[in-house]
């Protein structure tokens, strides 16, 4: 039931792409936050979370994503998302996340936008 999986799918320059699948709850959110910390500590500054295979994020998972956002802001980096389901997009809109993150419809458009900026 909604098995969680996380993979660092791409690392190009200071950009890293994390593919997240399944339910982002406290455990999933912790896993994302831990991997994000590792990537930022390793020098990456732009993190793209590909949520193509994520159907639901609960509010605890959201709070952990905010920790990732806070950390990227601290290192003057950027957090971006792509491939959001309509309900996750609405959740982010309710929270006002688009003010602080970049949101793309798909990974291709995200990479086209984020890579040249490095």
């Amino acid at each position, binding site marked *: 039931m909604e098995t969680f999986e996380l993979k660092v799918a791409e690392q190009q320059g200071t950009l890293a792409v994390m593919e997240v699948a399944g339910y982002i709850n406290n455990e999933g959110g912790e896993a994302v936050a831990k991997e994000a910390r590792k990537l930022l500590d390793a020098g990456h500054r732009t993190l793209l979370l590909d949520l193509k295979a994520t159907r639901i*994020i*609960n509010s605890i998972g959201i709070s952990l994503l905010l920790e990732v956002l806070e950390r990227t802001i601290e290192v003057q980096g950027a957090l971006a998302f792509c491939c959001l389901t309509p309900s996750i997009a609405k*959740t982010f809109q*309710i929270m006002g996340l688009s003010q602080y993150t970049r949101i793309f419809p798909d990974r291709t458009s995200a990479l086209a936008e984020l890579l040249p900026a490095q």
Partner: protein
Amino acid sequence: MAKPVRVRLVLPRVARAELLASRAVEEAGQRIAFPRDTLAEVKLAVVEACLNALEYGAGDVEVEVVAHPNDARAWIEVAVVDHGPGFDPSTVTRPVLEDKLRSKRKRGWGLELIRRLMDEVEITSEPGRTKIRMIRRRGGE
């Protein structure tokens, strides 16, 4: 006239129990051909209500899902009941992202999401019984 689809369950106190309620909403919603994207929003609201009940409540967490098929605008009604100490919903402040980013406590989004994802939300709470009743209509906001 088709009868409403009614599902009742008591959540076990195990990890991811809230997803059982989400699954019940999905099953009931699919039986009345509720739009998938709208149903996904109802599922998230129900997950949040169940998380609150499991975290702050005590005893059984009871969930009832009723999917009404035949009205001009089909609708789904969900009630989540817990038996914890209760709370005063009027004292729950609305979260502001800017403040949350500056704060160590980044949680506190559940009730806001429930209110924004559903068309109607009614919270009744007293010591020993808290009930969140919520409705989402086809074509609602």
